[in-house]
Every structure is written in C-alpha cells, then in structure tokens.
C-alpha cells in the first residue's frame, strides 16, 4: 500500500494513521514537518513551497522503491504540501508500516533524508524584512552517508 500526494491542501493525520493501521501490522511510524511558529522566529511571515510537477512524484516513488527494497514494509504514505504556508502549518508527512518497529523507524528516517536532498521542492521564506530562498543545508547531504 503506497500513496504519494503533492497538494496545496492540508493532510489529516487521523486518516493517514487509519490507512497505515489498516495494513494490519504491528508498527507504524509517522513523521510530520511543520513551519516553525512565530514564538521561535518572530520575523517569520510565511513559507512558499514550489515544486517540479511530474519529476517530484517520480523522485518520491523512486525513494519509496529504495526503502521497500531495504525493509519489509506493508505501507508507505508521503504527502508534501506546496503553495504559501503560514507558521505552524503542516509541510510534509511520511508514514511507514511494518511488522516491527526497527524497519518502520529506519525507513521513515531514510525516506525523509532522501526526500530532503532529492525531491525537487524549493522553499522561499517570507519574513517581515523581505523574502529569501532557503539555502540547502550541508547537514542534509551528510545525513545520506549513513544509508550508503
């Protein structure tokens, strides 16, 4: 069971969990990435997410196939939002279901690490003083090393 969705709309955590749980396995891991709040960053106004339609879905599908080749997974769901997102709004959801917790944890972390460096999304950060495209972080490239 696999789902890839690029969407302006928010995801429903309850529906995603229900779908992963329906695979009948013992372990579900879910990751959610969220726009940080203005208590942490008072200057932040919004994040705008742009993507390369077609290539994005293909890259995510490719990442999921790699995860499925490494771990016995019963379900994988990836949702990534695009468009203008306000502080505290959801950005990304990754959920995995497996018979045991180790493959569920590892595959979800693996998918996020590859999504961060391979899926063609770009973030523009809008602050009270102007807008700037977010720079890629070296730490995300480094994160891939543990899977290689």
């Amino acid at each position, binding site marked *: 069971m696999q789902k890839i969705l690029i969407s302006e709309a928010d995801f429903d955590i309850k529906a995603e969990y229900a779908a992963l749980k329906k695979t009948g396995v013992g372990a579900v891991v879910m990751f959610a990435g969220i726009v940080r709040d203005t208590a942490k960053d008072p200057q932040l106004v919004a994040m705008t997410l742009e993507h390369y339609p*077609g*290539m994005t879905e293909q890259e995510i599908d490719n990442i999921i196939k790699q995860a499925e080749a490494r771990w016995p997974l019963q379900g994988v769901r990836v949702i990534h939002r695009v468009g203008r997102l306000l502080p505290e709004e959801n950005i990304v959801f990754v959920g995995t279901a497996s018979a045991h917790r180790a493959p569920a944890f590892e595959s979800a972390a693996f998918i996020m690490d590859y999504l961060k460096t391979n899926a063609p999304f770009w973030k*523009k950060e809008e602050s009270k003083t102007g807008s700037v495209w977010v720079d890629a972080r070296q730490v995300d490239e480094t994160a891939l090393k543990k899977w290689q």
Partner: protein
Amino acid sequence: MKILYFAWMREHTGCSTEEIRLPENVANISELARYLRGRSAGHEAALRNLKTVRVAINRKYANLESPITDSDEIAFFPPVTGG
C-alpha cells in the same frame, strides 16, 4: 525543446518555461547552459555558476556532460530545500 527554471533561477530568467530549438553545436547540458546565458542578462545571472545548479533531463537527474536532443525537457534548478 522545453527548458524549465525553478526557484531563484526562475526569478532571474523571468520565465518558468521556454521553448527553444536546439542549436546544431549544442550537444550536452553544459553547452546548452552556455548557449542560454546569451539570451538575457537574467539568463546570464541564473546560469553563471553551474556548480551550484542541479539539472534534470526528462525529469531525471543529469549532469553537465549528459547528452541532449531536441525532444528533451531540460530543467535547471538550485539544490532542493523541501521537507
């Protein structure tokens, strides 16, 4: 062929998509980028430093030496920052 630009590269070139005819003497990505730089000051700014640029041919990651044909869809974009 179809050329796509994303994020700050799109803002520099001023267009997200353009249709061009592949010139005779352009056979790979790096030659294409050099050719496109001549189209405008914005193109020049976007494609000046290819070290920080990612490229895809028909929606698959490619590199500066990858060969291209006139029916390809080529995308130029900065390192990705989703998630």
